[in-house]
């Protein structure tokens, strides 16, 4: 039994060893505070999911970010300093996100943070960034709660800006499909039973009602649902002019397939997610035809940056962007660089002031942040989206009119 003593001694040694290991590698990487030094790169921490169920988004974000980095560096960097990207896998998990933010700020000494895919992660990381007074550009997380939080304590979240669209922007993106394209009087909302889809539904309802369009039915399905006979029967019974689909994860595909097979006589438009990704559509065959969807960007001359970016992306990585992840990450980094260049100094307060007052060009349009809640504005003259329709596995842009490929392609069985 006395031997147990040794057991704990060894345990202690192991424990201290691990700690020291952490310590020693820390001292290697913590390379000084020589900020504003033109020799030092300008470090941007990317907080993105690279594993877990949102894992595939992360790589696309990095791919978009790298193009921004190359372009900025080729143009002489940010006030002469080269841009360095330091990604961290937040695994779309709140605790990992905070760990990442702390590591990037305290150990890697980044100058700014960009990222987060999940709203929950963004909300937790905001506080870390605000405490450390590090600029944080939220690129993907969309919920209103972020800008509400900034709006409530604008001086504390002075350096936090939301490049990502708001919930209302997601639905505003779809609205032309109802008003201009189909001239619908009624619509049906089919979505998955998540908070996000419910938020979308209630905002959509408000916007549609303002445009004189009535909601005639809604269905919230499980995130693991596979059988949609009941939903489709309910849609047919409600007889809307358009179906708005908020099923953005796995069940979206069987829903779309069943929707196609059942020949529901009205067009469907999808807000975002699985049915807007080329990879999903690739092998669906005819069953993906006639699905319309909203996107934040596509290879059309929306600004003069857009087409070159999409071409560069395709050429460099051999796949098409999704119009979400890579675009918003690219834009965030560009905005950051442009703002510092405009401010003419690395001073954070000057940067915040510039971000609050100036306008910035991105792939998706012109970014102008709200002065109180730091939300990028949406609509004509600001950031705007596009609507497209799948036909033969290709995305045909159907809105806005100045860049569209064709008018809405109608299925033979639509009323």
């Amino acid at each position, binding site marked *: 039994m006395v031997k147990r003593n040794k057991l704990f001694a060894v345990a202690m040694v192991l424990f201290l060893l691990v700690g020291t290991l952490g310590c020693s590698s820390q001292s290697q990487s913590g390379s000084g505070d020589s900020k504003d030094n033109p020799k030092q790169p300008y470090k941007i921490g990317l907080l993105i999911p690279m594993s877990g169920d949102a894992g595939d988004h992360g790589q696309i974000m990095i791919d978009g970010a790298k193009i921004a980095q190359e372009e900025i560096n080729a143009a002489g960097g940010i006030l002469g300093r080269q841009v360095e990207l330091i990604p961290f896998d937040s695994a779309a998990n709140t605790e990992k996100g905070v760990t990442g933010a702390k590591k990037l700020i305290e150990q890697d000494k980044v100058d700014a943070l960009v990222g987060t895919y999940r709203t929950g992660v963004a909300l937790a990381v905001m506080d870390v960034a605000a405490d450390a007074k590090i600029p944080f550009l939220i690129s993907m997380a969309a919920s209103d709660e972020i800008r509400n939080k900034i709006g409530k304590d604008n001086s504390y979240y002075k350096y936090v800006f939301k490049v990502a669209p708001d919930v209302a922007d997601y639905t505003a993106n779809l609205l032309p499909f109802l008003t201009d394209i189909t001239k619908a009087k009624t619509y049906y909302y089919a979505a998955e039973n998540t908070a996000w889809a419910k938020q979308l539904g209630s905002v959509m309802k408000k916007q549609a009602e303002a445009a004189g369009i009535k909601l005639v039915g809604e269905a919230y*399905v499980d995130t693991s649902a596979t059988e949609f006979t009941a939903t489709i029967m309910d849609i047919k019974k409600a007889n809307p002019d358009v179906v708005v689909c908020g099923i953005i994860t796995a069940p979206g595909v069987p829903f779309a397939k069943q929707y196609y097979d059942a020949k529901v006589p009205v067009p469907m438009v999808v807000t975002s997610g699985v049915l807007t990704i080329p990879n999903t559509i690739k092998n669906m065959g005819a069953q993906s035809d006639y699905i319309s969807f909203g996107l934040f960007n596509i290879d059309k001359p929306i600004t003069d940056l857009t087409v070159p970016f999409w071409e560069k992306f395709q050429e460099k990585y051999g796949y098409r962007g999704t119009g979400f992840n890579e675009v918003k990450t690219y834009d965030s980094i560009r905005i950051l660089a442009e703002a510092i260049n405009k401010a003419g100094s690395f001073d954070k307060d000057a940067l915040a002031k510039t971000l609050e007052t100036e306008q910035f060009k991105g792939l998706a349009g012109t970014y102008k942040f709200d002065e109180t809640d730091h939300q990028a504005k949406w609509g004509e003259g600001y950031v705007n989206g596009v609507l497209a329709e799948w036909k033969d596995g290709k995305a045909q842009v159907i809105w806005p009119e100045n860049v569209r490929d064709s008018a809405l392609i109608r299925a033979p069985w639509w009323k």
Partner: protein
Amino acid sequence: MAFIQLVISGVLQGGLYALIALGLTLTLGVMRITDLSYGVYYTLGAYFSFFFIIKLGFNFVLAGILSVVLAFLIGLLVERLLLRRIISDELSVMILTFAFAYALEEIIVFVWGSPFRTLPPYAIGTLNIGGILLEKQRLVSFAVAVVLIVLVLLFLKKTRFGKALRMVSQQQHGAYLVGIDVQLIQRLTFAVGSFLAASAAVLLSPIYLVYPAMGWSPLLKAFGIVILGGMGSVKGTIIAAFALALIEVLSSYYINQSLSQVSFFVVLILVILIRPSGLFGNREGV
């Protein structure tokens, strides 16, 4: 009319639920282990057919057969290399199979990446019989599922292996005494379970979609069905599968569409609490 349509949809779905749950019920009965990696064979079946159809361009039937055969072989290997070592320790088996399910998911991400994949349909279109819509794809999948289930049932009833399997399931010790190679029976049963899970995936992945975490939901469904039907009762499993599918479809139309999963868990929890041996189980003390 609406009711008939819903019942038909429920029955079509039920056939596939039965197929998925059948393998698990055999494994549980014969091996007396809680196999939390059962869903992995479903995922593997889907990825194999994705690989054969999309990457190699095989036709659906050939790809399907190759996929289920591969799943069968992997089942054999897993039983031999992993489970056999610790099969007597219930807790270790659960931890191991849980870890294995996770590991395999990560391997799939490593090999095929994590994005959603889709497969082309094997039968397109819908039959309209007096206003009742029948998707051809679901009809085909149901038919194949029923054929497979009937084959398994015949196999259990008629063949020597089937009889030995039932003997092991009922009286493991007795089976030893009459000279049955229990290990062999267990290994083959485990592989047959993998085969059935994979065949369900082959039939369903062109209807749904393919992604690394796709196996968890069928695993839970299968467990729910097996528990509802009574552990080790083949008859109970099949009845429970159809009952569950019908409840899902009917409740989502007449009550609320968002509640099918919640109601599944609630029903499952209630059944375990009120009648732990399941609807058709007769084993004492659980």
